């Protein structure tokens, strides 16, 4: 159970303060998947950073199972938007970094399975700067999956992958989720993806991010989404939510 109550995060820049999240509240039940969708710059990454313990200075209450964020106690699998690979570690070392840090032996079969499904087995000895963008992203995915986390925080995890790969990654994620029921916050830019992998979908307002709306998603995990009418309506509903604000803001700017 993750509960975020009245979270406000500000960044200081050379000339002024940027409010990234403003009085933001969200709850994630154990074993739930929340897809987070919102306009660029609305504070999605900021939210994940707070939950992963990276950002410390915020207002509001952020609790994981009733306790404050503490990555040493909690087992957090984080896929960073820019992948967060360590350039001096090989693909393999990067992939098993989580286990190394937790001081655990790796479940060899599971690890092999993940690396294989992610198509990384041929490049385990390479360094990140010898990979393509999508390959780097897959290493980051591998790292978080191999960790078998209690809480999975994914920041646009499949953004650098082609559609076919992306779909098989989504399925891999759902497979893993079905097996381990890991609570997940899944930030995405794709409405289709949100509908496919999100049991609930949270839509954010433009910057500073607040919750614009929350949708129970009956279409979760359904195949061949695009062909269904329900998907069309759902997708329209989300688009409308996203757009509304934009228009409001546009108006606010013009008037």
């Amino acid at each position, binding site marked *: 159970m993750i509960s975020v109550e009245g979270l406000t995060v500000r960044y200081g820049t050379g000339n002024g303060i940027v409010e990234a999240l403003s009085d933001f509240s969200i709850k994630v039940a154990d074993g739930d998947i929340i897809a987070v969708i919102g306009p660029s710059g609305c504070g999605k990454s900021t939210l994940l950073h707070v939950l992963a313990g*990276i950002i410390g200075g915020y207002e509001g209450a952020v609790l994981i199972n009733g306790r404050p964020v503490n990555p040493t106690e909690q087992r957090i699998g984080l896929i960073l938007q820019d992948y967060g690979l360590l350039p001096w570690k090989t693909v393999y070392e990067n992939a098993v970094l989580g286990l190394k840090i937790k001081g655990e032996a790796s479940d060899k079969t599971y690890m092999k399975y993940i690396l294989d499904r992610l198509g990384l087995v041929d490049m385990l000895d390479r*360094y990140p700067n010898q990979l393509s963008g999508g390959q780097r992203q897959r290493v980051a995915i591998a790292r978080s999956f191999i960790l078998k986390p209690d809480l999975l925080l994914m920041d646009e995890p499949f953004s650098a992958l082609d559609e076919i790969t992306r779909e098989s990654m989504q399925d891999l994620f759902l497979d893993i989720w079905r097996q381990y029921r890991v609570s997940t916050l899944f930030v995405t830019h794709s409405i289709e993806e949100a509908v496919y992998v999100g049991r609930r979908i949270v839509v954010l307002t433009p910057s500073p991010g607040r919750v614009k709306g929350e949708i129970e998603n009956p279409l979760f995990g359904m195949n061949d989404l695009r062909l269904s009418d329900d998907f069309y309506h759902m997708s329209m509903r989300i688009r409308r939510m996203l757009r509304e604000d934009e228009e409001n803001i546009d108006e606010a700017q013009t008037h």
Partner: protein
Amino acid sequence: MKRKRIDLIAALAVLIAAWYAISLIWRMPIIPSPIAVFYKFFEILPSKLGVHALYSLWRIAAGIALSLVIGVPIGLCMGYFSEFGRISSPVVYFLYPIPKIALLPVVMLLLGLGEASKIAMIVLIIVFQIIVTVRDAVKGIPKEMYYSLISLGAKRGNIFSDIIIPASLPEVLTSMRVGLGTAISVLFFTETFGTEYGIGYFIMDAWMRVNYLEMYSGIVMLSIIGFAVFSAIDVAEHILCRWK
């Protein structure tokens, strides 16, 4: 490898040619011709210079090693723990400019005239260079680099071993290069007492005897020692920073 050898020969040719030209223009005993010096160099290499070189090499190696052992951890901590860095930076800023030569009597008092005080003098000088370089290197690591490890709840040990040390390794090697040059200079005021061995002693002694050929032979020896250690550091970098 082969290209390296060509570069080396080219560099040597340029250096020796320049030296030769200067010696021809000036025609003074204080700038002897490289030919005469090399002749002398090879003449005294087996009998004298070799032994002196070994002494100096040992002192340089011990001095640099000790400085790294002391300076790198301090520099890493000053760079990483901002509290500690803020408090200890002024201490370094006050201590580094203190002329270590002027502390010679104190060092002699504590450590005598033997090897200990010679190596201590080297350490006293280059340890600050290492601290400053390493501190700045760690400060320059972008904060995003830490995010993965923070989210994994990494202990300090891991943050050091997996991020700070590998990220600042190139600068540690830079500081070793800079320190090497400095250590060699320091030989000139540490190898002049309590010993009759070492290139510093040898050059000073030759200088006092106005024996410029021997003096320059010693300088050539130092130059070769320096080059050898620099090359060793380059090789180490090649191996340690394979990911680059």
